[in-house]
């Protein structure tokens, strides 16, 4: 019974394909993998918007949306209808083709990224070797879409926002990928399904999740910070800094095109959270062996929900960083620490005995963290600010 509940979607898919004539079976299989993704994650986006607005409201000591439907739960429906019926305004000087294509090219990579994430046992839409590289490769496509949006609007603020966004995404992509490298090294594969299998081992009732190792903790924290920056989440939401450049690269977008930008941003966040779960939090596996009876897909979505809540919490708590702080943090702190983390993972692999492994690996990371912190904070002397081009 529990086995069947765990595999309920796999069984349902097999049943449905069995009803289709054999010549259409490959295409039916592909459609049955794609359609749930298209239904579940935009639906999750709608739920997350209302959760985020209510959560932020609570953090900021106000109610949040509470008018539409019971407890304001139908707010996303109202928002969706509003964006659908709003007039789409296009600036006269805008580049028509690129202005139209930019939101499309932003959503497509975010959706493609879901094709390699294992959502449960035997539930990975596209299992291939090098799938991790595929994830990062499609993520690279969003940068061009952001540029297209910023440039095609013919607006100074949108171009500035696009430049900021691209600089930020390029800078944080490096620590993001480097923080995933130790996992690939230790599990010896680039396939997310294999990486989850490598973590699905229990010693004394506790799972071998990568986050339960020193390099895993460091890697997971680095990954989360870089993921927040990649998906333009607060405290790294400089590209849309309202107080400085109005709304960044999508100022000129209105109506449904704006909704697509919003959707693309959240889909990117969910995808990168899913990858973080796969790499560090054991994917669909249970943390303790006595909890393995809970279906695998429930574990995945529970973890996803927890990470989303964490990001909402961070957004409500942290102030926005400054541009130079953002760049310094990526290049002077996160990049070296990610490289040190790779060394620590190698030490973990080649030292004997669990206690000794912990000692060596944690010492390397701790020494690196301490040295970086000392080096970065030592020379900070705050003087009166001087301006070159202003008084």
């Amino acid at each position, binding site marked *: 019974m529990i086995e069947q509940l765990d595999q309920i979607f796999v069984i349902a898919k097999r049943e449905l394909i069995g009803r289709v004539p054999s010549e259409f079976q490959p295409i039916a299989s592909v459609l049955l993998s794609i359609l749930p993704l298209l239904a579940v994650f935009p639906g999750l986006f709608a739920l997350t918007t209302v959760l985020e607005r209510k959560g932020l409201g609570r953090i900021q000591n106000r109610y949040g949306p509470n008018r539409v439907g019971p407890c304001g739960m139908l707010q996303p429906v109202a928002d969706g209808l509003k964006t659908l019926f709003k007039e789409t305004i296009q600036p006269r000087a805008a580049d028509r083709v*690129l202005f139209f294509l930019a939101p499309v090219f932003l959503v497509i990579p975010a959706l493609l990224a879901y094709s390699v994430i294992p959502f449960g046992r035997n539930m990975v839409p596209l299992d*291939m*070797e*090098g799938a991790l*590289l*595929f994830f*990062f*490769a*499609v*993520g*690279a*496509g969003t*940068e*061009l879409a952001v*540029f*297209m949006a910023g*440039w095609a609007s013919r607006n100074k603020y949108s*171009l500035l926002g696009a*430049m900021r966004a*691209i600089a930020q995404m*390029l800078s944080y*992509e490096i620590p993001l990928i480097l923080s995933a490298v130790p996992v690939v090294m230790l599990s*010896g*594969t*680039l396939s997310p399904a294999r990486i989850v299998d490598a973590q699905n081992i229990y010693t004394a009732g506790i799972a071998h999740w990568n986050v339960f190792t020193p390099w895993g903790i460091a890697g997971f924290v680095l990954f989360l910070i870089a993921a927040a920056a990649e998906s333009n989440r607060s405290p790294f939401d400089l590209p849309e800094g309202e107080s400085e450049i109005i709304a960044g690269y999508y100022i000129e977008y209105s109506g449904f095109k704006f909704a697509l930008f919003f959707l693309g941003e959240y889909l990117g966040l969910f995808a990168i959270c899913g990858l973080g779960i796969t790499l560090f939090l054991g994917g669909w596996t249970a943390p303790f062996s006595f909890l393995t009876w809970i279906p695998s897909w429930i574990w995945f979505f529970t973890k996803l929900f927890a990470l989303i809540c964490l990001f909402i919490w961070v957004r409500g708590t942290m102030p926005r960083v400054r541009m130079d702080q953002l760049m310094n943090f990526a290049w002077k702190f996160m990049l070296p620490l990610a490289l040190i983390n790779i060394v620590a993972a190698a030490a973990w692999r080649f030292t004997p005995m669990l206690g000794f492994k912990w000692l060596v690996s944690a010492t390397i990371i701790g020494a690196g963290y301490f040295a970086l912190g000392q080096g970065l904070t030592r020379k900070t002397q705050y003087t009166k600010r001087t301006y070159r081009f202003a008084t």
Partner: protein
Amino acid sequence: MPLSFYILASFTIISAIAAMSLRNLVHCALCLALTFLGVAGLFLQLNAGFLAFAQILVYVGAVAILIVFAILLTRGTEQPQEKWATGLLLSVPLTIIVAAILLNAVFSTKLAVGAPAENPPPVRDLGVALLTSHVIPLEIIGLLLTVALLGAVVLALPERAPELEGQGGTST
């Protein structure tokens, strides 16, 4: 040749032609990104997944962005009106020389023509080959990239604040 090859090849060639002939430089750069994407598709069709994704990651994710940044930061996006005859005088010999070098290289290379591999070699083999039989080229490329990175950092260092006028005498 399967149909997918012709679709991908025509996509690549058409976007390459567009990248050469469009008037707006930013459009050209974006078409070039499409060309890179088409080449990655061709790799994928030859069952070389790792190469295809690395191509997208490096060329679409980094090189295309670099080109776009270079265009935007160094000059206006509108094509200046150049003298047609002098352009022709320069470009025709240059084109012939470059084409001769490239064609010579293409025709002197022995290509192993055959069906695409049924089972692509696993990524692990690729890594082992890079760190054993091809370790010297890999390290030379790594050195080259490090030097380029250091050069970029040196270029990006903040300018020295100009000396106070009348004291140092250095012109700004």
